């Protein structure tokens, strides 16, 4: 069985092809197409242990999907589009309508995703377009969507409501939605498997580090709170996003700098976070700089870590204790020193990390990082939401 996963956004399209045979899931190719709508769209992919790169004129999402299909054919994974059994889309925003993370794509789903565009302008319109295009390019494949917000729809009201006039909730649906839901769910699922315990019996806090950074608290497998809010801007300090700020700062900057609030929104989303504080989005690089005596880098990292510790404390109490802390990251975001620094602030809660094990972590291998003495388990799992989505779909289709 061949399963293609797609994640469409204003950044481009991420794609992965999986083969599922004899209950074994194998990643055949992973790639990203950027600069869609230009003459020099870019296709970077890895397969058979090689990194490859291609440039082509790509006018729209359908053309981009056709290019992906051409690539799959060229590399010999398929011969026709009909060889693809299922296409799986990662969709960012399902409001409160989509409570199940996995749904079959229907015209109604596409309409809804488009209708929710205001809530995730950088993703939902592209998600919708991706689903439409996939129906054209892969008319015979099963089509599924995974909703990033789904695991957080049923947060308790006290966790999802803001201290705002109530009509903003009823009229504009302003509430905490939370994001990275699939990444958190997959991450904690894998971590539970690693330590051999059931998710249904555990209190879990997970930290996801990618382009965005978020934390979530799960009680018996159900999310009870998460750091991202109405949009992915809220919460922890991220690569380029500010996370929490005094909301008055937006108004202050508007009047002092003569900026429109849209421009300020863009500052908070694109030139803040670690980039704004340190001047880099690369956490490993920031650590190297800090070690070399770069004070700004040290300060930025300390602030980043401090915010994570504060959320941990808050969730520890919301859960009334914790059994498992999961670090979810991939590639350059696997920075053992970051985990060590975070756990240092949690020592009075009984956490201890094995620094040697942390430093020996292999990027693609789930690893137990806590010592035997630690009151709760600390685990690293690689970020693999595509694999996790593909697996869920494969198992569903086999039934």
């Amino acid at each position, binding site marked *: 069985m061949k399963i293609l996963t797609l994640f469409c956004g204003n950044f481009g399209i991420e794609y992965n092809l999986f083969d599922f045979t004899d209950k074994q899931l194998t990643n055949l190719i992973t790639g990203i197409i950027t600069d869609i709508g230009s003459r020099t769209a870019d296709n970077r992919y890895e397969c058979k242990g090689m990194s490859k790169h291609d440039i082509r004129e790509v006018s729209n999402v359908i053309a981009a999907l056709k290019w992906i299909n051409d690539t799959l054919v060229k590399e010999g994974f398929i011969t026709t589009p009909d060889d693809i059994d299922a296409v799986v889309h990662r969709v960012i925003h399902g409001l409160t309508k989509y409570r199940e993370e996995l749904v079959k794509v229907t015209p109604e789903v596409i309409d809804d995703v488009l209708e929710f565009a205001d809530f995730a302008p950088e993703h939902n319109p592209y998600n919708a377009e991706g689903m439409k295009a996939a129906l054209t390019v892969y008319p015979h494949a099963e089509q599924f969507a995974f909703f990033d917000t789904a695991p957080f729809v049923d947060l308790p009201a006290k966790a999802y409501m803001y201290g705002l006039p109530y009509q903003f909730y009823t009229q504009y649906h302003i509430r*905490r939605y939370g994001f990275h839901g699939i990444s958190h769910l997959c991450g904690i699922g894998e971590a539970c498997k690693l330590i051999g315990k059931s998710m249904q019996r555990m209190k879990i806090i997970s930290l996801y580090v990618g382009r965005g950074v978020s934390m979530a608290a799960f009680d018996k497998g159900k999310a009870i709170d998460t750091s991202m809010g109405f949009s992915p801007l809220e919460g922890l300090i991220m690569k380029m996003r500010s996370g929490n700020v005094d909301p*008055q700062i937006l108004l202050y900057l508007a009047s002092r700098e003569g900026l429109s609030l849209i421009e300020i929104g863009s500052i908070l989303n694109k030139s803040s976070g670690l980039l704004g504080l340190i001047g880099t989005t690369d956490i490993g690089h920031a650590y190297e700089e800090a070690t070399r005596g770069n004070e700004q880098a040290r300060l930025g990292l300390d602030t980043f870590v401090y915010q994570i510790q504060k959320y941990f404390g808050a969730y520890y109490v919301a859960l009334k204790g914790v059994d498992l802390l999961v670090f979810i990251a991939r590639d350059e975001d696997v920075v053992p020193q970051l985990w060590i620094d975070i756990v240092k602030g949690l020592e009075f809660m009984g956490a201890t990390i094995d620094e040697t094990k942390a430093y020996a972590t292999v990027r693609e291998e789930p690893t137990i990082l806590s010592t035997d003495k630690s009151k709760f388990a600390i685990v690293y799992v690689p970020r693999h939401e595509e694999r996790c989505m593909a697996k869920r779909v494969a198992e569903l289709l086999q039934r």
Partner: protein
Amino acid sequence: MKILVLNCGSSSIKYRLFDNDITIARGVVEKIGEEVSLFSHYSEGVEIKKQPIKVPDHTRGIELVLNTLVDKGVIHDYGEIDAIGHRVVHGGEEFKSSVLIDDRVMRTLYACIPFAPLHNPHNIKGIESCKQILPNVPQVAVFDTAFHQTMGPVAFLYAIPYHYYEKYGLRRYGFHGTSHYYVSNRAAELMGQPMSKLKMITAHLGNGCSVAAIKFGKVVDTSMGFTPLEGLVMGTRSGDIDPAIVTFLIRKERLSPDEVDSILNKRSGLLGISGISNDMRQLMDASNKGNERARLAIDIFAYRVKKYISAYAGVLGGVDAIVFTAGIGENAPLVRKKILEGLEFMGIQLDDELNKCMVGGREGIISKPDAKVKLFVIPTNEELVIARETRKIVEQLRG
């Protein structure tokens, strides 16, 4: 030594005359500049309650106060006042402690206006008026922000481009400092231990609300930020929200920055969620009668305080005492209970009986006798702190 303590707002002057630590007169001039102003005064054998009177400006208001003090025999003449202590809301990074007001200080106070445009100008008006009326009496400024100036950059920096900190001083300042200072010191006194050995969390829950983490006498973090808008859900202020909500509202409702400012500061918080009132007593009544939104407002309020307390417990690496103060903190046992519910595993044990009777300005302990974490209700007394600070500075001045 007789010290007059003044708190000048946009249309009001609150005053209290101290003879050392004893209050010998107090009162308030309200609705200054309106058609009819109101004057209240209390001193030995005298009670003036909301007397209608015409007070066009702050100078006339202060004259009214001084004349009343003489007329009612509290003092013989103006010369008896040794010093005046002013509450000033924002001292920026310049003022890390209380200060004798001279021309240089005045210039700096003016420079701090953009930080607190709603408060500082009126604080300054009060100082200018006193200089006119009592040119030879020393005046001292006591800042709401000063006690929080011990915070480190990790706690006070936002993850926005660093140059905004350098250019505009955009950082966390924190407020209610005088109140946090008073109640934390008082709690240490009640515990019979020096501040230098205690880890404390103080919760000032009035119409404005803030929490502070105090380690060995120094504030290490606090919930209000650049302005008093950030942090907890308050009477009419939103506290923390996703900053993207500000830009979303502007797009959706076509609001101006001023309108958003007014929504977040005046129509949000308990009032906004409940749609009934910013007054916790009314909300509790309504909630008891089955009003769902009133109940929700209380739940959200308490959950937010709980999250901050737990985050700070983590930051402090454990906590010896938690102190509640101000309107809600002093008078709402039910809210205190909700906040502390579920924290037993941290060593917190609320004594329900003590909690219930600690209202109406009573001071005392509300934790069970053998609980690890001491819980206190301590009525705040910012004026006393201002009087003491002023006295200290004047004594130094006199050598």
